[in-house]
């Protein structure tokens, strides 16, 4: 879970940085989208690097989901009888890891159908014109709702996930505790704020 999670996290950091290019206008954002396809050229053939990233990510998503399923089954089996007196346990981010993960998995499917294949995209999806595609997506109320909810889920998931991965990999200790918590919170905040800024910018007309 830790290794696949960190792989995806690395991707998200690159993704949010790329998304922020939307603020520099259509030429730059579309050129960036084009670069993703010629990345690695001329050593690699067109879109090979992109496909490599896609394959690694897909493997990470599948591994993450399979591990989460196995871990959850084991955890449910270990506590067959629930307590009669229930009380809230752990922080919100920690408690929502399972549901948050499911929401994110559904979001990723929607997101690829929306902005990569264009299958569920509102308006005329045009390959190679990601700027206009993004603006179209965030011109619908449901586009905004889906993305913003998912981005909040990303923040919560990363907040617990990053710190947790550090513990799993044996990097945590009492002295690093504050540092790791701060790093997890910063990552979560930067990712959520960065991603959410795009729909907000379209809604407010800053990006159009």
């Amino acid at each position, binding site marked *: 879970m830790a290794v696949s999670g960190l792989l995806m996290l690395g991707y998200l950091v690159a993704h949010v940085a790329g998304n922020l290019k939307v603020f520099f206008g259509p030429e730059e954002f579309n050129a960036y989208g084009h670069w993703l396809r010629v990345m690695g050229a001329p050593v690699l053939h067109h879109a090979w690097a992109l496909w490599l990233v896609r394959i690694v990510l897909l493997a990470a998503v599948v591994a993450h989901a399979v591990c989460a399923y196995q871990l959850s089954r084991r955890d449910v089996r270990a506590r067959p009888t629930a307590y009669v007196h229930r009380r809230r346990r752990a922080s919100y981010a920690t408690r929502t890891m399972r549901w948050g993960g499911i929401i994110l998995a559904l979001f990723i499917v929607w997101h690829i159908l929306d902005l990569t294949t264009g299958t569920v995209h509102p308006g005329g999806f045009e390959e190679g014109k990601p700027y206009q595609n993004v603006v179209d997506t965030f011109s619908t109320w449901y586009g905004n709702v889906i993305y913003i909810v998912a981005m909040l889920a990303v923040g919560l998931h990363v907040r617990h996930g990053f710190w947790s991965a550090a513990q799993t990999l044996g990097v*945590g200790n009492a002295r690093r505790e504050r540092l790791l918590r701060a790093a997890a919170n910063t990552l979560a905040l930067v990712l959520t704020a960065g991603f959410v800024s795009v729909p907000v910018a379209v809604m407010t007309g800053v990006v159009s």
Partner: protein
Amino acid sequence: MRLTLRVWRQRNADTPGAMSTYDVDGISADMSFLEMLDTLNEDLILRGEDPVAFDHDCREGICGACSLVINGDAHGPERTTTCQLHMRSFHDGDTIDVEPWRASAFPVVKDLVVDRSAFDRVIQAGGYITAPTGAAPEAHASPVPKADADSAFEHAECIGCGACVAACPNGSAMLFTSAKVNHLNVLPQGSPERETRVLDMVAQMDAEGFGGCTLTGECATACPKGIPLPSISAMNKEWLRARRKAARG
């Protein structure tokens, strides 16, 4: 004080249990939680009813025999063992829910008593050193850095009560196992079995049916001995190190 208790009653492992409600009166704020249960039991015996079975031994917070999930908290609202929890933590007229530790690895024996021998088997898998010890050795014979000695002492405090498992939403025994592994792994006396200890104890912990750790931190919050959450990370580090070493041969 006068209290209403809702207590888990279960005849034995094979019959289903349920919460039963009892009123207890004449409880003083200075009584321990177990003395309060003694009062209830004396009452029950006088009335010809079956007294509530619960585990206890030292009643001074050092043996790890007492348990009880009180109002959803392992060992109750204070950070101590149930035997050291006093009734001043409650108020006249309170309703208090008392349940056993809940984990498939800790089956209920009767009422509030659970079988914690899974912990014994985890210890048997590696919670020992093989060097002959004999009488206390000369203190300077094998120097131990202060930080390591402190860490060993901190982890040696674990009394094996199982509150960590009871509090964990996943019924995981990582905090207990990490306390036992780290206690011996930081010391020179424990180093000959450093790798086998962590691998075997973790394997036994898994075999007992404890849940997997998702780092919720509930264990360390409940632990009456303050075994810290980063101990789990320290054990993971030892485990990864041992696995890498085994892979290299």
